[in-house]
Structures are given as C-alpha cells and as structure tokens.
C-alpha cells in the first residue's frame, strides 16, 4: 500500500509533546528544538553520500541465506 507522499505529522510536534516541561515557554522551547534538529541534520549532511540518485541506483545486492 502506497503512503501519502508527504505526511502531515511533523517530528518537531512530537518532540514538543514529549520533551516540553510544563513551565517552559513553548515558543522558546520550539526554537531550541529547531536549532537542535538543524545541528543534527547539518552533521548528517556532512557525511551523506553526495549523489543520492547514483548511489541508490548502484546499490545492488544478490539474495542470500
């Protein structure tokens, strides 16, 4: 079954739901989380193979077991 191309759920909302302390200002907290996610993705960007299309095409395996 194919899934929607873009799901409405946003991961930042999930994080808010789980990590926000009751007394924390929500917008401040959201900003900090966004920064945090940006930092993670920046680091992942640095190591991701550069040409995704080529990489995906060339990843061919034989069956096993």
């Amino acid at each position, binding site marked *: 079954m*194919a*899934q929607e191309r873009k799901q409405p759920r946003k991961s930042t909302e999930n*994080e808010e739901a789980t990590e926000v302390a009751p007394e924390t200002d929500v917008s401040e907290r959201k900003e900090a989380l966004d920064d945090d996610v940006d930092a993670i993705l920046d*680091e992942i960007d640095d*190591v991701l193979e550069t040409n995704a299309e080529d990489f995906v095409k060339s*990843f061919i395996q*034989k*069956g096993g077991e």
Partner: protein
Amino acid sequence: MSVRRVMGTEVEYGISVQGQPTANPMVASSQVVNAYASATVRARRARWDFEEESPLRDARGFDMSRQVADPSQLTDEDMGLANVILTNGARLYVDHAHPEYSTPEVTTPLDIVRWDKAGEQVMLDASRRASQLPGGAPIVLYKNNTDNKGASYGAHENYLMRRSTPFGDIVRHLTPFFVSRQVVCGAGRVGIGQDGRDDGFQISQRADYFEVEVGLETTLKRPIINTRDEPHADPEKYRRLHVILGDANLAEVSTYLKLGTTALVLSMIEDRFLSQEFTVEGSVSALRSVSHDPTLQQRITLTDGRKLTAVQLQMEYLDLAKKYVEDRFGSDADAQTVDVLQRWESVLDRLERDPMLCATELDWVAKLKLLEQYRDRDGLGWDDAKLQLIDYQYSDIRPEKGLYHRLVGMGRIERLLDDEQVEVAMHDPPEDTRAYFRGRCLEKYADHVAAASWDSVIFDLPGRESLQRVPTIDPLRGSRAHVGELLDRCETAEALFAALTR
C-alpha cells in the same frame, strides 16, 4: 528458564565495491573474509568443515596476491576457503554473495548484543583490510537486509530448545508473537514491496519477503516459522529453532529485546505456560500490513474475532511473561530477565502513546525520525532518492559514515555496552558455553587445530597419523568452569589432548 538460553545470531552483510557497481560480490566477500583471516588468524588457518579434507588442506594459506591477480579464476569451490573460526568462537565466512558472521553460542541477550556487535567490528576491520589490498577498491559493508530492488539477505537467530516440546506448540504460540514483534525490533525500511515499487516507509526490512507460514526454505517462499532442524547438539534432547524472520539491527536495545523477549516466549512455550492462544487470521498478510503502518494503528484479526494492534498483541505476551516469571521465580528472577521485562513494558507503553518516544532505543523509530526531519526541512516526498540513501547509509558499518553511528556519536541513541567490552569480544570467547573451549583452542594451539565446527574441535598432533576429533556436543560443556584450568595448564595441544582422553 527465563531469558537465559543457548542462543546465537548469524548476519549476512550487504556489500558494495566503491566505484564498481558490477563487481562480483562473491569475490569481494571472499576478499573481506580472507583479508581478516590472513591478518589475524595465526599460523595455520583452521577450517570450518571436516568434510572436504584434502582439497582444502592443500590450499591452506590461500594468498592474497593470487586472489587479486586473477579474481575471475575464483570458482565456487575456492570460495569454500573463505570460512574461518575466530578466537572468540565465532564463524566468519562467505554465504552466497555476502560475508557472514555467526556469533559464538552465548546464554544471555546482553551477550548476544556483545558478540553481535563484535561481529560488526570484525567486519569493519575485515573490509578495511580488504580495501588495502594491492589494486583493491574500497569495500563497504551494510548491516541491512535488502537492496529495495528485490534482493533480501538474512539476519538469523538461533535458539536451543528442548526436543520434547511439540513443534506444533512452537508454531501456534510463536507465529502471533513474530507477526507483532517487529514494532519492537524492526530496523525500518524506505520502500514498499519486495522490489520497492511503492513509495513509503515501513517498520521491517524483511516483512515483504515472507510468503508462507511454515516451511524449510530460506531463500524462496520464505516462511515465518522455519523448520530447519540441525541442532548441533544431542538431537535426542535438543532442537535448534532457526529464526529467519528478523531484521539486522544496529541499535543495541533492539537486538537485546529481540532476543530477550523471544527467549522468554520460548520458555513459556516449553513450560506449557501459554494456555491462551492468539492465532492470527492470515499471518503472512498481517505481518506485512503491520510493517506498512508506522503509526501502529493497524489491527491484527485473531481467529477468535478479536482485533488487536501489534503493540496490544505484544502487551498480551508481556503480561503473560510477567505472570510466568513471577510464578516461576518470584523475587529470585535473574537481573537480566527483570531488565528485559521492564524495558519491554516501557517500550510498548511509549509505542502505544507516540512511537517517536522510542527514537533513542529502536532502529526503526530512530531511522523514521531522521527521515521525517529531512522531509520537514527539505520538503521531500517518499520517492526522493535522498530518503532511500538515508535508509541504506543508516546501516553503513563505518563509524565515520554510518548514520546509526553518527547518531550514537551525537548521543541520540542509547547503548548498553561500551566500545571496550565490544572490542574484547572480537578476540575473547564467551565463558559459559563450548565456544570457550573452541576459542581458547584456536587462540592457544592454532598450529595444531586442523578444523573446528559448532560441535567439534579437530587436532592435528605431531606423531599421529590421523586427525583427532574432540566432540563438543553439549553446548553448555567446555565452558571456563569446565576446562579453564585445564587450558591454562596445558602448554601444548598434545598435553591437552592427552589430558582430555586420559
């Protein structure tokens, strides 16, 4: 029993030769295994199999330059050489077109994690060595199970069970557990269908490759319950349950719970504790539909009419397991059994509320969270190649490139062990099974061990015409408690053999 049981895993790694997409994967896999063996296995290289003695013996010390000089000459027969036993009791070999590592026999889920992770490090070291061969291109290994183009390769689990337990009981009680356990131990996959023809994310790498409920096959018509029956132990007393359904996990908590919860369910089956049945209507299609719904709302229909989500079905097994442990052990339950129950409960409770709450523990959630973050930031649809790349690269075993490893490095994924514990396990065997005897013999008497397997060590001793076989048919004998002092005391293989046969 509890979570304690003789167990092991065997993982086939995806392999690619950088810049050479058409490279022969059998040759590359052989280079990986042989590079590790040449560099680390001292002196004589003990063979795995005793069957084909002479051709293999002639060719021992198979050398790298010949291999590189003329790889097209490598026939399947030669491939048989890429098959070695390590001092940690594990087996490293080529299976079909993949390098494979089988852990030594261990008795706890945490030891599974430890020797399974040691296998990743062995593979990393092996692939780096193979990449340094003259004329060699970099070889990269992936701890995953599919190329999303139709091919799948396995990550199997093995559990020693009592022969007296009827196989029908195992099928009946284990199938619903296996249909649902992927919500805990799935590794996550971008792509739906065996060849990834539909776009989207699913929980399991393997679900789409299973076609029947019970059977002997592992490469086609894959069954949820595999009936291979080679106990590598006394067949009167034991069977080995060979589980082919699972995903290869990177996250330590995923592996720990995969083996720990399955071992608990097997104990309940053996002790005939499960009076309730959860027989699933159409288990193969249920396996897939659960995998295809990462929101975890998909219901599984039971033959008694109930409709449960996979998390709810897991909770049923959890409740029974808690009762079982309380009933059999009370406050004497061992620490790991208690820990597995607590973690299982905690994970299920959070999966029920919001799966993302498990992003630091479970592979599929960690992977999905990262994918969703990319989708949010870059506005990517599920058909975007970048998301597929992230799926593959999550399982790249190189610490500098693998996304699982990068997430661990950033403190985003919980570990159960530290690097040093894993590194020691690359070389040292577990102490509480026959793997201890096998591994120590390989380490101490390498020159005189001609071959070894799960159930024997075969010595070639000076002054003796024939090879001398020491059977190790009982997986729990040959432990440090049994033979540690003997191995410490015997300086030579002859002395050991004399002491064993006196």
